[in-house]
């Protein structure tokens, strides 16, 4: 593994260089070494690195190190962040799950609010929603449906596992008072549902009298 000093110098110089270097530039750098020897060192080095994780390559008479092309796939790292789905996105996802396949216009009409395109993108990025074709209707709108990953993620074996409207009502999830209260106090504030019911009742009673 012993190398002559010139080859070591060439190797170090090319490694530390900020741009590719020609044999002439290297010769100048390494105390005016004979060009023929520089070239021979370059060939030896290229040979040495031919099978390694890095390569010494010549491009337009200038030399530089680069990583081996077949390793490109390795040199990518995926960093994952976990983010909570926004309230709007959750609503859109729920609508798609209950009504699929649905178009964006239908989603909006069910939600009663305009839906930004980004929301659907997020759901598709999450892998829970896919485009399920186009509706044979005027304008042929794109329609959306959930994916098998959606069922996996939410622990459902089929969409029919989702509770029906009656069950939702039974669990109080359709209580309009809660919604009105939410709207009043602004978003995501969770309120004790018991408190909510009671205050709702009294308020209702008073307004009737």
């Amino acid at each position, binding site marked *: 593994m012993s190398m002559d000093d010139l080859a070591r110098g060439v190797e170090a110089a090319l490694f530390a*260089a900020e741009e590719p270097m020609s044999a002439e530039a290297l010769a100048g750098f390494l105390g005016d070494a004979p060009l023929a020897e520089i070239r021979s060192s370059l060939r030896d080095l290229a040979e040495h690195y031919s099978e390694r994780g890095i390569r010494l390559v010549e491009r337009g008479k200038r030399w530089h190190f680069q990583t081996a092309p077949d390793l490109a796939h390795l040199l990518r790292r995926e960093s994952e962040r976990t*983010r909570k789905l926004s309230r709007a996105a959750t609503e859109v996802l729920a609508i798609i799950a209950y009504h699929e396949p649905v178009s964006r216009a239908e989603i909006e009409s069910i939600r009663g609010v305009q839906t930004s395109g980004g929301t659907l993108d997020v759901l598709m990025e999450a892998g829970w929603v896919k485009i399920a074709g186009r509706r044979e209707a005027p304008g042929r709108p794109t329609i959306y449906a959930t994916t098998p990953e959606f069922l996996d993620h939410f622990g459902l074996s089929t969409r029919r596992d989702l509770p029906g409207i009656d069950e939702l009502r039974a669990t109080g999830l359709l209580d309009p008072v809660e919604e009105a209260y939410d709207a009043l106090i602004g978003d995501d504030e969770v309120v004790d549902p018991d408190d909510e019911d009671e205050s709702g009742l009294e308020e209702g009673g008073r307004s009737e009298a």
Partner: protein
Amino acid sequence: MKQDELLLDLPHEAAAGAAGGEDWSEDTAHRTNEPEDALYLDLDVWAGPLYLLLDLARRQKVDLRQISILALVDQYLEYIDQADALKLELAADYLVMAAWLAYLKSSLLLPKEEQEEPSAEELALKLQLRLQRLGAMREAAARLMGRDRLERDVFLRGAPEGLRIEHLTRWKCDQYALIEAYGRVKARTAPAVHMVRDRPVMSLDSALGRVSAMLGVTLDWMELREFLPPHAEPRLRRSALASSFVAALELAKMGRAELAQDEIFGPLRLRRIKA
């Protein structure tokens, strides 16, 4: 102990004034190679009395642990004298240090019985320990600076490709959130249905009927509360009281009953007026 600290600390507190001159750049190799007999007058190279003492100590060419504090004190005082003779302006801390060392010297020479606490030996030993520590750090600094240093002696790759990092977002949502969201949507967009709750009330008509029927029974005064249904639940009772009061007023207006109240908020009484 207190006194010791005070004295030893004095010099470097005083050195604060000269702190500006403390950050100079200086070649350590050059310093250690200085010939022993050089005249040490380039004040620029001294950061402060402790440094000066350390350099003087170094010139004794012995281990700092075996340094003679007395000899050191003599050297320092001599140095100050020389500098003074050359009319160099000495920083105040040099003079404070000189005064302290002179005191230390006289204490060291005094018979031990006459010494105060802390003893001169203690002060001298602590001074020696300080010099050892400073000396050790100066040496360590020189060795550190002399290492093969990145970007001076050794170099990193000039143009690394960099490792690509792809940021993926893993979205999180659970079943309950999903279902709750749907419930929220449905609730928000459901057609508004106003449900009137069933409440126990006594309407004015029934109160009127009840009060006038009961008035027909007697000619005596009756308190309003006696007209209320006896076993009514509290909410019905409240409603009945209000309705009965209005009914009583109505009857009075029609000339069928008269009302009396003896004091404010007192019991309200009514009786039939004979037709």
